[in-house]
């Protein structure tokens, strides 16, 4: 038992925090999706962000990577407040970050190879041949080597996702944020991606923040869980705690109980039951 002491319980100094929110209020002018959660994402950990559709997971990710200024409070990534930095310093931080967007966000006019070479071109002086070889390497990792010279429009949804993951990994990021990497993938490919994420984490000691709904995937990779519901934080803590928590949201998410209450909530009951 003491042997399998999980990562999360080790006391980590503050500089091991790669991303955090402080007294934040995140959302859009007329819709707050998360408030006062004070999240902390640690180096070398895999954090899974879970929650129902449309409750602000992608929004939280956007806030973390500097695309959506918090309405209040502070969001820090790799120790910096991106929203207060100059363009150059911002880019220097973002260069150490890889992002996989929910819809892939590949540049449609460029081939898959060019898409992956894009960050390398911008940030390094690598020779063309080596960039291409590296792109091929990354694509092979996600099982897409044959798509090297295809255009994004020729890829299926799941292939786009994987190609976008390869692009996010192009510069060996220190922090990797993935919005539903395995959505739309078959279980086998999805498990392959999980293994890849764990491998990368092991070799590069990077932090991975994943938005995902796949229970198997969460069980396999998560060290820590953030669960959000519309406008509030449900849970933030180690996976082991999430699995045994009695919070009704977590209980129904991890499916430990047949969700009887949804049936009693049904319109049928509302219409037929006597007051």
């Amino acid at each position, binding site marked *: 038992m003491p042997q399998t002491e999980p990562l999360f319980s080790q006391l980590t100094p503050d500089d091991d925090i790669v991303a955090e929110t402080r007294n934040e209020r995140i959302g859009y002018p007329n819709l707050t999706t998360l408030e006062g959660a004070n999240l902390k994402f640690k180096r070398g950990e895999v954090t899974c962000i879970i929650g129902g559709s449309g409750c602000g997971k992608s929004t939280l990710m956007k806030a973390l990577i500097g695309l959506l200024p918090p309405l209040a409070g502070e969001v820090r990534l790799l120790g910096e407040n991106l929203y207060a930095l100059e363009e150059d310093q911002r880019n220097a931080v973002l260069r150490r970050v890889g992002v996989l967007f929910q819809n892939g966000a590949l540049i449609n006019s460029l081939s898959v190879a060019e898409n992956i070479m894009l960050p*390398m071109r911008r940030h390094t002086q690598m020779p063309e041949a080596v960039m291409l070889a590296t792109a*091929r390497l990354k694509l092979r990792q996600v099982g897409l080597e044959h798509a090297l010279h295809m255009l994004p429009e020729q890829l299926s949804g799941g292939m786009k996702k994987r190609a976008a993951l390869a692009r996010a990994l192009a510069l060996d990021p220190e922090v990797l944020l993935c919005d539903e990497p395995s959505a739309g993938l078959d279980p086998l490919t999805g498990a392959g991606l999980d293994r890849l994420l764990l491998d990368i984490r092991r070799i590069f000691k990077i932090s991975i923040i994943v938005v995902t709904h796949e229970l198997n995937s969460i069980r396999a990779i998560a060290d820590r869980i953030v669960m959000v519901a519309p406008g509030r934080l449900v849970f933030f803590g180690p996976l082991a705690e999430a699995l045994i928590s009695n919070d009704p949201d977590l209980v129904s998410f991890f499916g430990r109980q047949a969700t009887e209450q949804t049936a009693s909530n049904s319109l049928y009951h509302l219409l037929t039951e006597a007051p």
Partner: protein
Amino acid sequence: MAGDVRAALRGAPGDGVELRWDQDLTRATVPTAWRSLNRTLRTIKDGELHLVLAESVQLDSAGVGLLEEIRNLAMARQLHFRVAANSPAVRNLLSIYTAPPDTKPTPVRTAGPFEQVGEKLYAALDEAFHFLVLTSDTTFLAIRGLVRPVVPWRTFVEQCIRIGSQSLPIIALISFLVGLTTALQAAYQLRQFGANIYIANLVGVAMLAEMGPLMTAIVMAGRCGSSIAAEIATMVIAEEVDALKTMGIPPLRYVLLPRFYALIFTQPLLTVMSTAIGILGGLLVAVLYLDLSVPAFWTQLVDGLAMRDLVQAMLKSIVFATIIGLTAAHVGFRARGGATGVGKSTTAAVVASIFMVIVADAIFSLIFYFGV
């Protein structure tokens, strides 16, 4: 200087070179390493290049990419490339990358000249067929829609207002300038013959029968044709058109018909307005430059214009509107390939419809000159 080339490798098949490497292989150092490894590789005639990575060497994925590319180059020259790495970190990193498949890439078969010509011809025929089907479908739907209305009255009015208000200012300005310049060009000639008053006939006929319909059509192609094409192309690419089809809603009726009606209804109105404003431009020149009075100009204008010209103008504007709507829809429905496809089809719609409008205009002029 990175690495030093050592003497021939003992016990290796053929000659070989062992290269000790003690520099990092990371994004920052890859450019220099690439040059130096390439140089070394070129000195080897046959046998093997054996790269021995020192314990301290740092490796990242760019470095792995470099190693793989060197291996590819070596293989292309029938050489062997081997890496020896003692550091566990390097070995770990290399282990998470899968080896490239051994299979040779299947050569891409290029089509012969006959095949290419055939393909082009087939594509052109296919396109023409699609256009024909679209034209007949739309005509059928549009005519049936007159009897059994399918487009809500409100949608139709909204579209008309949108198209009208979008295009009105620019058409007005262009027509005014065209009328003005036509009159100016003619005024000088007419004055030499003392035929000042005929400026009214000239501007009137030119604007009504030719410039009014044509200028309106060109602006409409640019403003409305492009937006119809872009809208339809966006829907095609986002699979919205497929979704409509599966829901049993014919995309033509839902997407095209309201815009098509609005276009055919507004374009004649805009053409009349364009003509009137163009004549106004001519009047300005007549009054300021040829010293004609407004009533004289007006009398001459009314005398000079025949009903025929008005009929021609209205006919032209309706045909042009049809051409613009159909071309835009045709190009839009055939859009392929992501967001870039939308841009391409928008441009194609404008270019194609302006071209077709001008061809149709020429045909009209011939018919009305010789025929009627």
